[in-house]
C-alpha cells in the first residue's frame, strides 16, 4: 500500500468516524464512508489541506476509490 493511500485512509476514518480496519484502498469511497454529497465536498477540502495540494473538481470526477484518490493527490504533489 502506498504511503499516500495509507494516509488518505487514516484521514477518512478519523474525519468521518469510521473503523479504519474496514476501509480498503479499492473500496468505493462514498459507499465505504456512507457520506452524502455535502460530505464529499468536505472530504475534498480535508484532503487538500492535509496534503497541501489543490485538486480541481474535474480531476476528482472519475475518482471512486481511495487508491484512485491517492493517485490524483500524488500527481499534484
Amino acid at each position, binding site marked *: 500500500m502506498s504511503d499516500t493511500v495509507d494516509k488518505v485512509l487514516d484521514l477518512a476514518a478519523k474525519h468521518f468516524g469510521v473503523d479504519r480496519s474496514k476501509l480498503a484502498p479499492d473500496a468505493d469511497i462514498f459507499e465505504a464512508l456512507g457520506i452524502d454529497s455535502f460530505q*464529499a*465536498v468536505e472530504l475534498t477540502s480535508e484532503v487538500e489541506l492535509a496534503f497541501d495540494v489543490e485538486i480541481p*473538481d474535474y480531476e476528482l470526477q472519475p475518482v471512486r476509490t481511495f487508491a484512485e484518490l491517492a493517485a490524483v493527490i500524488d500527481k499534484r504533489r
Partner: protein
Amino acid sequence: MTHWTIDAGIAHLVLDRPPCNEIGTAMLADLERFLADVADREDDVAAVVISSAQRGGFSAGADLRELYEGLRREPADRHESLLRSFLDRIHTVMDTLDMLPQTTIAVVHGICFGGGFELALACDLIVAERSARFCFPELRLGLVPGFGGIPRLERDTHASVVRDLLFTGRSINAKRALDAGIVREVVPRGSGLDAAMAAARQVTKFDAETRARAKLFAKRLPVERLAEEKALFLELAQRDVLVRALERFVTSDDIRPYLP
C-alpha cells in the same frame, strides 16, 4: 427555520432551511424580512453576523429544484418575467445587505456555492471555517452567476481569481480563499461564530456615524456591472440549455451532482 436575534448591538441571522439553505422564494422572503428589521437600526445595531445552522454548509446557492419546477410549470413566454421578478428582488436584497450601515460578517462552513457564495460576498467580511468551500458552478447550467457575485468578487479581489472561478467552475478551499483575499481568516471547525462575534463586539465600540461613513468611503456598489450581470443572466436563462441542465441536476443520483 431561518431566524435572527438582536442583542448587545449585534444582529445574528441564522440561515436554517434544509437541505443547505438553498435560495428560493422562501429564503428570499426570510432575507427580506431580516433586512427590513435591521436596515434602519444603525443606532442600536452595529454589526450583522450571518451563519448557517445546516450541517452541509453556509448555502448551496439558488434553489435549482424550485427554478426547474417553475420553468416547467409556466409557459415559455412567461419565463423572462418570472426570472426578472425573482432577480429584481434578490438584487435588492443583496445590494441592501452589501450597503447596510452596519458592519456585516458571514460565517462560512462547508458548502458556499453559487448564490450562497454571492450572499457571503455581499457581506463586508467573511470568516471561513476550515471546512469552507467556495464555487461558482453556474456555467455548468449555461448561466453566469445572477445575484451580483461576479461584480462583487471583481471589486474585492483580482480579476484572475474571478476568471479562474467563473470559467472553470472549480471549487476552492478556505486556505485558497484566504490567499485570494476573499476571506479574512480561516478558523478551526466549529469556531467561526465565536471569531465573528468577537469581531462584531469590537465593532460595537465605534461611533455609529463614523462606522457608517467609513463604510460608505471604503465600499461602493458596482452599480453598472451589477446591471450588466443581470442583463446577461436573463439573456442566457431564456435558452433551452438551462432547462436541460436543470433536468440533469434534479434527476442526478451522482454523489457530486454539481459537476456537469
